């Protein structure tokens, strides 16, 4: 038989170009700016979408194949975990409070990332970035779902998970911090989205967000979460490459893009750092077995690794984010200031809090020699004394929130850790408050956006945070309890101290059942 085998073999890059780039075309029956209406309004100039370098060359068939393999493995582990009471293998049920924070604060962001990248995957006129964004979009729905699936088993046995991954992010005061971050990015245009989420969040900050939670899981015997973490690792690596390619592409296309991109980097670095306060607190206070201190993580992943990244971007004229000086001061404080806040508001949180014990305080002293003993240890000792006398301190007034990051005004002045930092701006005759120079700067740049913020404390005072049909004039009306009901926080079960909680008692009893014969 005459076999013709002369057909030229295509190189991988060439083949991939045919599989993607070649699919698009310049429309002529409808104008391009109607087909891609979001391409120009942010002021970013792109002259040649073909200059985009595909950060990973994955055709759909290969994608299905690799991802399905990972899914089969992941779900096999999750099934085994559920079948064998894997939840009893964790260091201590106290650890689960970090996981509750993850499910209520991070998993919903994965979902919004999925929708936002779907939008980016529709809106860029270039085929290359569109395909890359769509792959990230579908990865992100994977992450939201696999996280819910991994943590669903904990929900069956522990308090504080039952509201799932959506109800609370829309409502609860501290969750408006991560939520407003993503709302902010998604309500901007596609290019800012890529800098906010693709670059700042997924590239610069992922080692400080995703990695600490997953490492915390590994250190604390949480097989479900850590398996998810490992399974998502190769997705995350792809997302990081996309974020970096995107910023380089924008900068290479037109010199006019530089100031816009720089402004966004400054804004989103600071927005991101503020969200990371929750992670800082988790690392320093919530893990029974600690991975490293927040300060150490910040130094390794931001100051060192981030420094190298910004050196690399310097050739485009990009400077390190302007917040860096303040961050180097803050790294010694924010985890303590956050945990002190949650301790005072433990009645209004969907997880338990506790005072660090003697051994933990010594660890904190060692990790924070400049600040812990001087500013924070005395506070904890005072609260310990009060608690021992039966006067556990709860703060029963509601704090003022920063108009931008939405964190209660608990941070201190850069040059005085004993003084709360306030900044004030005026817009259309109204006063607005921010927690820092960074947030004030962001506010002043787009006041018309940030005055729209749905601030949980304001909303509570306006009566918008009660279950439908609540009558505030009824006898015995307790606003706090009604707010908790609206939050889906079960008072006495999900909130308050870990010491004496149902989680603590159940974990001890169940572990006993699993390890002893009585």
């Amino acid at each position, binding site marked *: 038989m*005459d*076999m*013709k*085998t002369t057909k030229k073999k*295509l190189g991988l890059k060439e083949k991939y170009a*045919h599989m993607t780039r*070649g*699919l698009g*075309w310049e*429309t002529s029956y409808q104008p391009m700016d109607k087909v891609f*209406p*979001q391409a120009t309004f942010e002021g970013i100039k792109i002259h040649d979408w073909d200059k985009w370098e595909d950060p990973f060359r994955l055709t*759909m*068939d290969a994608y*299905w194949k690799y991802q*399905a*393999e990972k*899914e089969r493995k*992941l*779900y096999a582990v999750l099934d085994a975990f559920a*079948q064998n009471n894997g939840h009893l293998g964790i260091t201590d049920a106290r650890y689960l409070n970090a996981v509750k924070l993850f499910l209520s604060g991070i998993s*919903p962001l994965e*979902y919004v990332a999925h*929708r*936002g990248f*779907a*939008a980016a995957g*529709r809106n860029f006129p270039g*085929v290359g970035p569109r395909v890359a964004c*769509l792959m990230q979009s*579908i990865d992100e*729905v*994977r992450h*939201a*779902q*696999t996280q*819910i*699936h991994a943590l*669903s088993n904990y*929900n*069956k*046995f522990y*308090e504080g998970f*039952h*509201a*799932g991954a*959506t109800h609370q992010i*829309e*409502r609860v005061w501290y969750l408006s911090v991560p*939520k407003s971050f993503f*709302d*902010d990015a*998604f*309500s901007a*245009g596609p290019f800012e989205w890529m800098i906010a989420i693709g670059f700042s969040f997924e590239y610069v900050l992922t080692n400080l967000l995703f990695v600490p939670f997953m490492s915390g899981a590994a250190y604390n015997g949480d097989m479900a979460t850590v398996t998810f973490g490992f399974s998502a690792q190769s997705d995350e690596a792809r997302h990081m490459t996309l974020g970096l390619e995107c910023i380089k592409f924008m900068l290479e296309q037109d010199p006019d893009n530089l100031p816009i991109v720089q402004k966004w980097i400054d804004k989103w670095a600071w927005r991101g750092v503020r969200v990371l306060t929750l992670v800082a607190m988790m690392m320093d206070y919530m893990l029974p077995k600690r991975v490293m201190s927040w300060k150490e993580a910040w130094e390794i992943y931001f100051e060192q690794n981030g420094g190298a990244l910004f050196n690399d971007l310097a050739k485009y004229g990009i400077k390190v984010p302007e917040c860096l000086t303040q961050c180097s001061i803050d790294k010694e404080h924010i985890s303590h200031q956050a945990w002190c806040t949650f301790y005072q508001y433990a009645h209004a949180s969907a997880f338990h809090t506790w005072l660090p014990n003697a051994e933990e305080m010594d660890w904190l002293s060692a990790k924070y020699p400049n600040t812990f003993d001087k500013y924070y240890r005395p506070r904890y000792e005072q609260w310990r004394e009060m608690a021992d006398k039966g006067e556990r301190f709860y703060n029963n007034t509601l704090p003022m929130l920063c108009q931008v990051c939405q964190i209660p005004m608990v941070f201190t002045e850069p040059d005085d850790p004993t003084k709360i930092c306030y900044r004030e701006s005026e817009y259309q005759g109204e006063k607005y408050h921010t927690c820092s120079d960074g947030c004030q700067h962001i506010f002043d740049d787009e006041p018309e956006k*940030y005055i*729209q913020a749905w601030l949980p404390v304001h909303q509570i005072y306006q009566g918008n945070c009660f279950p439908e049909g609540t009558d505030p004039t009824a006898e015995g009306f307790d606003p706090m309890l009604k707010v908790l009901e609206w939050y*889906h926080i079960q008072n006495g079960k999900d909130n308050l101290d870990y010491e004496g909680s149902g989680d603590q008692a159940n974990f001890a009893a169940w572990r006993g*059942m*699993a390890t002893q014969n009585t």
Partner: protein
Amino acid sequence: MQMDLRTVAIKPLRHTFDHLVERFGDKPASRYQEGSYNIQQEHIFHYRPAWDAERVLFDKKRTRIVMQDWYALKDPRQYYYGAYTIARARQQEAAESSFEMIEERGLAELIPAEVKQTALDLLVPMRHVEWGGNMGNSYIAAYGYGTVITQPCLYHAMDHLGVAQYLTRIGLVLDGPEALDTAKEAWMSGALWQPMRRHVENLLVLQDWFEIFVAQNLVLEGLLNPMLYDHLDADFSANGGTAISMMTRFMAEWSSETAKWVDAQIKVVAAESPANKELLSAWVKQYRSATREALAPIARRAFGDHADEVLGEVTAEFNARCAKLGLAV
């Protein structure tokens, strides 16, 4: 014989999350349910989108269709990410072995020239139509409402990309990279393709996401896929082009699988209210005639004198399908 392994049994405090208890009762929920229901935020949003200041980020008002509960639109395949990728991985494995066999044994060389030419003229430019399908469905995934409908639309968008890539491979196998250039040229300026390109571009500027769902997923795919993957495919097989059928097997399976999903959505939406039914029916009528116009020259190239007959048959089947879904078309 049955074996009983004993395990330490702990009575759970609850079986699933609050919103699933509300919806389905306190019983163990499926992974589809946990991964889909109510995981999109609904009520509170901080900032009006710069790209749509009249609405909030996830807004029911981005379509004229009205549903009391958008979560009534469930996917009969119950695809969450894991189930979806595992199903597609199985299908791609079969497709891959077909392509491998054809390439290894040089089966494309055995296809009669005329049949091969038909495939090059019709299947390869179709990859651009698929790319349009990807764009419409990613739009829905971004701006639609409720995860049970936005999620499968993203999967559908990725499927369209996959199909576009399989069609690209067909071009490469049958001829080589030049086939893609020729097809692109035909798509851009060949008389045969201009009505279809106009139609696809018209769908790219629609703003009502459910209208896109109807125009693209129900009507365009409902007429085009049977024409290509039933009728034309039968012609290929009957005329020595079995190798082509092997390469379109994925699309044939995929289009009947996704049609069932599309049907389930339309049926629920039509049954919700007379207003929905009327709107859906009007869209179907509008896009059916636009699609038929776009398909006419392609059908002529494919079926010659039988073109009207084939188009008529495809349309009749499509009409029967719509009637079964409760539409008045």
